[in-house]
């Protein structure tokens, strides 16, 4: 079954997935928290259309990389908390490694030019 390509604004789909996984590596978080984390850590360089986050979250959940649970937020409101599953953690490690090699290679190419 092939997944349909999302249209996540400026971000490549794979990148968005990686960012979500990375965000959740620190612990369970709700969707809003993930969005905030991405904005803050990328110092607003990466513009995520926040709405696009949710299909991505659901897709990762369906693929079994994330698990989700309803719980209470800091201000005591009902929110859906996502956390990494073991295969999610594995996926994060793989993708991080891949990303590193990729960006390293791209950087070298750009230097030689």
């Amino acid at each position, binding site marked *: 079954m092939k997944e*349909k390509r999302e249209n996540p604004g400026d971000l490549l789909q794979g990148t968005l997935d990686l960012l979500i996984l990375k965000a959740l590596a620190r612990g369970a978080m709700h969707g*809003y928290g993930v969005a905030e984390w991405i904005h803050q850590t990328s110092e607003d360089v990466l513009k995520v259309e*926040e709405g*696009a986050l*949710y*299909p991505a979250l*659901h*897709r990762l959940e*369906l693929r079994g990389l994330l698990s989700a649970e309803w719980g209470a937020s800091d201000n005591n409101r009902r929110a*859906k908390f996502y956390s990494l599953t073991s295969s999610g953690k594995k996926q994060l490690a793989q993708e991080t490694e891949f990303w590193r090699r990729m960006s390293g290679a791209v950087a070298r190419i750009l230097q030689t030019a």
Partner: protein
Amino acid sequence: MLSEWRNRTSLRFKALFHRRQLDRDLEDEVAFHLSMAEQKNRAQGISPEQSRHTARRRFGNTTSLKERSREMWTLVSLEVLLQDIRFGARKLGKSPGFTIVAVLTLALGIGANTAIFSLIHTVMMKSLPFANPSELYRLGEGADCCALDGLQGNFGIYSYALYKQLRNSTPEFSKMAAFSGGLHLISVRRTGGAGLSEPYVGEFVSGNYFSTFGLGAYAGRLLSESDDQPSSSPVAVISYRVWREHFSLDPSVIGGSFLINGQPLTIVGVTSPGFFGETLRRDPPDFWVPLASEPILRLDGSLLAHSELHWLYIIGRLKPGEKPGQVQARVTLEVQQWLTSQGQIPEAYRPQIAKQHVTLTPAGAGVARMRTAYADGLRLLAAASGLVLLIACANVANLLLAQGTAQRAQTVMRVALGAPRVRLIRQALTEGLMLGVLGGAAGLAVAYAGTQIILALAFRGAHYVPIQTAPSLPVLGFAALLSLLTSVIFAAAPAWINSRADAGEALRGAQRNIREGSNAPQKFLIVLQAALSLVLLAGAGLLTESLHNLEHQQFGFETEGRLIVKVDPALAGYTADRLDGLYRLLKERLRQIPGVQSVSFSLYSPMSDVNWSSGISVEGRPAPANPEDFDGASWVRVSADYFETIGTRLVRGRFIDERDTAGSRHITVINESFARMFFPKQDPLGKHFGLGDASHAGDYEIVGIVADAKYQDAREAAYPTFFRPLFQTEKFTDAGEQSTETRSNWIHDIELRVSGRPQNLQPLIRQTLAGIDPNMPVVDMMTFSEQVTRNFNQDRLMARLAGIFGLLALGLACIGLYGVLAYNVARRTQEIGIRVALGAPRSDILQMVLGEALILAGLGVAIGIPCALASNHLLSSMLFGLKATNPVVMSLAAAALLLVAMVAACFPAHKASAVDPLVALRHD
């Protein structure tokens, strides 16, 4: 890991069936997000209005988000499938004609194959319900019946003494059972009951019969060794079917007293429902009786004590590890030794003993009587039904291709509008799948009905056929899979081709853009169908003509206006001294029935599947040097008026008449074949011969010669036959020969020549017979032509089924051709319009379409004729009175095919010739 998998599965399940819950969850999530963002903005000092606005803007379009999320969930492909099915059903519903034809085609193809292969499975392959069937072996082969004396060469039937000898001296078998080779009619009445005795079928079996096969009782107990002793009280076992159908599962039947052939017996148990005896056959045994009871039950002469009369089949259970080949050699040796020890074998035959042998045959499926009888026929039907399935698949493929091409414009448009190709193909696949499933379900119904029809045709005249009519599941599965594959492949192929089309084509108008050769696969399929149809039609024609030849040949007797009544005076307890009185009474009373013109009796009547034959000695004719080609002939005992009643012509001399009694001069009447064989270039009248050795050569005098009539095999010339009056009995020293001589006085057939419809007299005849002796059951009553017709059950089955298949194939070819032509005309509407506008006469257009049909059908005929010639020679052995290459049948089949092609072409041709050029040119 497992719990993760479970979570994911439940989530997907939710995504399919709890859509609303997920929708609400998503809304909650979005609302939470927005309110958090709004709160943050406000904390930064932005106005509430502005806060909400910014939050919403940063979030993006919520509606499209929801849609995307939903699409996320629908990734579960089952969802898509459901949608496809809904769409497919709508589409199929929109073109009911196409759907009905496709489903019917598949149903007939699947159904016919399932019915025939299920029967083959039951008759040819299935083991009977025995324990460890692979250990069971029959001693011998063949279907010899019912009592043979002397040497057999290849031994298959044994006397009781020989059975006991083999059983006791062959330790390789853990058990060895014997049972009568032929079944026996028995009359059964409950002791003390008010009812008349009724005829049932009985089988004599050894006491270890049931334990050899490893069978258990359904109720009560089965027979044991101790029941099979001369001293044991007589018992019998009843079949479950008779217990249910005739005794309503009455538990008091078990342990109940019955009169069987007038002798008191106790029923000790019921066999299990699936057991119908060791032989798969029509009208299987209803009662099993130990061999020890044979002397009291067989009223026309017991065989048990005659060591020289062979009437039992033997099946044994080999001990594990024993090699059938070695055991076979040992049994052969035992039979030879036993024969050597027998004093009554004449010196002249003794050198032959060393040539006697026994073949061990696997008996896991019992005695393979039906298998032998129906093997050729079933194999041919299997081939024919395979062809039908092939044609059906070709037809469905054709229909789907035509539909696919017709939908090209739509498909191309959908591609241009951005529909993913995978989705288009999947959609087509689903449609094909649905057709296949519908066809399979309808095919199941056809299979049920088909099996019933085949059994009715194959066993005409049978009271009961122990063959399950339920279609075999593996067979159904195979046929359904094949048709499913066909419909799926041929549904998907056009979709695949169409979906690769250049999207720009849609804009130019797909209808105009179809290449000329694009329906070549369809034309190929049509030609294939036509060729296969021709093969089937020619085969059906040959078989039908052969059946006609068989049924309407010169038999040497008249069937018109004749009735045959089967009786069994022995069953009613008539002893030899009372027979004459009974026959006189029967003749007198039956003659008084209005409409009855003449009455006669005989040991058996023509074409009733009975034949008595014996060795004879002719006065003045030296015995043959080689004892293996001894003189032998068929013979029948008949009453006065016999030849007049069945309509056999007198050639010379006189018929057997009232003058020929027990006390008068012993005479005989011979047929022409007999005269030719034993009295070449002599006048047989006044000559003498007799049954048995030379001491009997003067026993009776020939007083008449009658025309040849066929009694046994309708495909062969009449056997040399002689006819003897009842009660003219000779004395024999050999007990077996004496028994045969005496038994031949019990008639089994009453022949009646009547005026008017023979069927109308039947109730009156029954009434008359019951009035003479209520204890003498009418075993069967039928017209003489029905009796003859029953000999051709297998031929009729073959001819009718082949005929049905042939017509089916023809019909399918017609539909297929019509589909292609109609489609072609529709496609070429514009072209035809232009031709008409340019002045082409309408007859040209008509010719063009008809010509196309003729070319396709003609190609089919051209390919089909050599195929038919090649395959029909397989039928040669079944044909009577014509050759497999019969040119008339072949040309008729070809003509039928061409005619049907013309019929199929008529409507499209008319439509083409009626094209209005103005409308056609305006058309897109």
